[in-house]
């Protein structure tokens, strides 16, 4: 996926790094630290003296919002604005010591739906910033259709979220808009509710913000709220996504940014991480998502489109309870890359037998390739078979192959020979068989 969410801390760090370029007329103290526990926070206080000098706010930084409503923003001990370093540290330790339930949607202050339960692992700590409600503003930017859109409001926080249509001014720009056009249009569209004396300042901040959004390749960027006191800016809360395909151009601009798994999402398995790592190193494409690793049908399908068609068909014919994974390999991977991909899958699918005692199924599918050499990729799969043959037999694995494209006759012949030699059950079909027909055949067995 090209658009990846980043932590609030990283979003602030990126803006802070380029502050003078985009916001030369404003100041931002960039007093923020990210820690995983209380002792890390105390350690941080040795270099960041403001942690000792100021009262603090602490909150989790794990890609979810509504932290206030979930009671996960620490801003008071006895009364608002009195949180000390020690209090923040003990609060973080307390909140991270056991699983927390977090609701993502609310009706008023009442949570709706099921909570996500997971461990809090990352917290951001900042100074408590006393300010007047009227000094809070909202700004965000993203791409809608073909255009970039900036959303601006004179009110920040909950107010803007709950009164979006009345309170937000949106302005759209084509991708080819110039700096001058953008600046002019933003100045002309400052929300009416912004006090007249602040309008010019507000516009300048939004112009800089939108330029940062464009030039730093953010896919989504939101500050809700920011506090503007004269030329002093505080970024109270931020949400950001980066277009990670721009990563190669943004090595210095972004610095060491991390793409964390969202709270409540299962952490990526080492196998998935290994495939992602291999994918990043090749010009070909290797993708793997584990849906239900204990299920009995595994797919190893070539091609982004064909892999979806196979998944659709399995869901239609067998239901999703039997589908263990989704993934694809394409773009002419080497024999070695294909072997690694096949081994990863074989390792996962042969760990446990089917709880209901049925045999397992491996669908080695694919459309008619345009340029991927079928024999070459199948050589990788065969090498993986050789390593895993005994384990495959132990889970009663049946293999169904369907593929076409360059050198497919040899590929199909080779894989059949190899499976027969290794004593594996296999059925092999070429382009004369409809692409997903092997799913039906496998299920009818």
């Amino acid at each position, binding site marked *: *996926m*090209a*658009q990846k969410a980043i932590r609030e801390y990283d979003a602030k760090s990126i803006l802070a790094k380029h502050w003078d370029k985009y916001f030369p007329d404003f100041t931002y103290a960039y007093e923020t630290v990210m820690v995983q526990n209380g002792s890390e926070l105390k350690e941080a206080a040795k270099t960041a003296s403001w942690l000792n000098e100021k009262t603090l706010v602490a909150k989790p930084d794990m890609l979810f919002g509504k932290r206030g409503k979930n009671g996960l923003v620490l801003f008071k001990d006895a009364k608002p604005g009195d949180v000390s370093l020690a209090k923040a540290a003990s609060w973080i330790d307390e909140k991270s010591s056991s699983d927390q339930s977090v609701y993502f949607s609310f009706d008023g202050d009442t949570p709706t739906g099921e909570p996500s339960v997971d461990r809090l692992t990352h917290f951001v700590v900042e100074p408590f910033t006393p300010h007047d409600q009227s000094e809070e503003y909202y700004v965000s930017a993203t*791409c809608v259709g*073909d255009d970039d859109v900036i959303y601006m409001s004179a009110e920040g926080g909950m107010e803007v979220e709950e009164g979006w249509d009345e309170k937000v001014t949106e302005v759209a720009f*084509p*991708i*080819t808009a110039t700096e001058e056009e953008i600046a002019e249009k933003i100045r002309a569209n400052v929300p009416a509710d912004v006090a007249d004396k602040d309008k010019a300042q507000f516009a300048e901040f939004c112009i800089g913000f939108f330029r940062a959004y*464009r030039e730093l*390749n953010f*896919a989504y960027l939101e500050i809700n709220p920011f506090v503007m006191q004269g030329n002093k800016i505080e970024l109270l809360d931020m949400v950001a996504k980066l*277009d990670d*395909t*721009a990563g*190669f*151009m943004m090595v210095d601009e972004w610095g060491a940014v991390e793409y964390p798994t*969202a709270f409540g*999402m299962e952490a990526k398995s080492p196998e998935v991480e290994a495939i992602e790592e291999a994918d990043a190193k090749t*010009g070909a*494409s290797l*993708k793997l*998502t584990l*849906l239900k690793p204990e299920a009995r049908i595994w797919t190893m399908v*070539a*091609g*982004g*489109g*064909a*892999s*979806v*068609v196979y*998944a*659709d*068909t*399995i*869901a*239609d014919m067998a239901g*999703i309870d039997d589908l263990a994974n*989704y993934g*694809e390999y*394409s*773009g002419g991977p080497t024999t070695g890359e294909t072997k690694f991909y096949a081994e990863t899958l074989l390792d996962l699918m042969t760990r446990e037998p089917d709880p209901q005692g049925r045999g397992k199924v491996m669908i080695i599918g*694919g*459309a*008619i*390739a*345009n*340029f991927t050499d079928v024999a070459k990729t199948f050589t990788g799969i065969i090498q993986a078979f050789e390593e895993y043959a005994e384990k495959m037999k132990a889970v009663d694995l049946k293999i169904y192959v369907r593929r*076409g*494209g*360059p050198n497919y006759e040899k590929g199909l012949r080779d894989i059949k020979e190899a499976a027969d030699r290794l004593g594996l059950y296999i059925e092999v079909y070429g*382009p004369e068989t*409809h*692409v*997903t*027909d092997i799913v*039906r055949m496998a299920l009818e067995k």
Partner: protein
Amino acid sequence: MEQLYTKDTQAIFWNNNKTAIQRMLDYDYTIQRKTPSVAAIVAPTSGNKFEKFFYGPDEVMIPLFKTTAAAKAAQPQADVLLNFASFRTAYDVTMEALEIGGFSSMMITAEGIPERLARKMNQTAREKGVIIIGPATVGAITPGAFKVANIGGTITNIVNSKLHRAGSCGLVTRSGGLFNELSNIIAINADGIAEGVAIGGDRFVGSVFIDNMLRMEKNPAVKYMILLGEVGGTEEYKVIDAIKSGAITKPVIAWCIGTIAKYYDSGVQFGHAGASANADSETAEYKNKAMAEAGIHVPASFNELPAMINKVFTDLKLADIPEPEMSVCPTVRSSKEFICTISDDRGDEATYAGFPISSVATPDTGKGIGDVVSLLWFKKQYPKWATDFIETVIKTVADHGPAVSGAHNAKVTARAGKSVVESLVTGLLTIGPRFGGAIDGAAEHFKYAEDNGLDPKAFLNHMKKLGIPIPGIGHRIKSLKNPDLRVTGLMNYAAENFPSTPLLDYARTVEALTTSKKENLILNVDGTIGILMVDMWRALGYSEEEINEFIASGTLNSFFILGRTIGFIGHVLDEKRLAMPMYRHPMTDILYDVQVAEEIK
């Protein structure tokens, strides 16, 4: 434009992707195109001038260029850019080509171009009226006319999938792999496709379904259309709108893949980067339902798509498409090790650049050695004033007495009892920067000075900075008052016969300055020859670039080598006739200054 490509369409292929280009040429040969579909290849880091490819059983050479601009200038008729640059450079390549202009469509294969760059590239192309196919695509095809790179796969699969001749379906897909699969299904269940485009899997692609389908609506060869969409995005709704507004009237069959996505939250990315539903309306099910309601033929599942295609096609009751004549690419071909473009000994009589030897050899043909040089060295028939000039040069440089290094070497070797050829080459081997090289040097430096508008004074300063005396200027004894008559002869010939002599005219202004400093700093015979050769080539219509290449490849020196060979052979034969003994240099002519070698510890 109602058709994306025709049988005359030619492309500039950015990146020397040999397999893909070979597949295109195999296709061209199979469908009997008159010209190869790839007119030029842009290979920025290659030093080669062409790449060999098979064209059926034979081989052809496709020119290589370092830049798109150079490729486009050389092949202006090629109006398709096949951009096979990586995701890092694909944007720059496209934007540069848009700037150069003259392209009707561009295909971009890279996956994962930064989104902002992809959007900017797509928008710029749209404003200029250039169709973008991709990014992240395998391309497009107009069967029987033009095929992009790898689309359709191998030639066997192409014929099996009836992609070698136009059928009646207009096909649009996101996925490249499924494009191929659909072509096969359409070949089995209908009569093949008239035009097909895989629009690409990235979130931001240039031309979308509707752009291509509106064109297909106007294309009389397209009788119905098939759209294979995906979960994510809203492009299918534009097609629905076009059907509702009557902009599309031809029957449409459609299916969106990714119905499985509804079972999982948005964290699971199915398929391409563009395939992720952000709203209900972007799910595959919702889109399939909406398309069916708009009167599009939507099957119950992907598995039932073939039957649906068969039904719609059969109902159209189209006439059978005649099978065209095809050429068959041999399966076993071997590449040639050597290439010859100047002479051919395969026919009845050997030829020089297409002319039988007998047609240039005897005096009655009116051809001289200058004509033979122009045929074998330049593959052109030069006019008489030029061939006469070449002969004049050869005659002028044929010999310069026994004392020059080459002649001396040849004589010493001959006296050692060696053969004519051995003696000759020892003489020839001395030809280089110091002996005969002034011809090359004069052409190079004077041309540089004139090309860059240096006045004589600036030129002299430039040469001073380089730290080399001006080649072609200066003579041991001759001066303006005591001119070298060989030079006079050459100059008079040029004045009377050349259409113009701009470089010589410039060189004379330089000579005026150098001789004002010292009498013998005249334009000498080497300089005059080098400079007049440049003027000759200019008058013959060669580009400055081609002339620079002649200079760089040593063509000027070749005239000296050819002419002086006559003289060296003369000296060698002279020695043989005189039966001179082995030569030993008199010791009195050697300064002996030998020190005892120092020991290094």
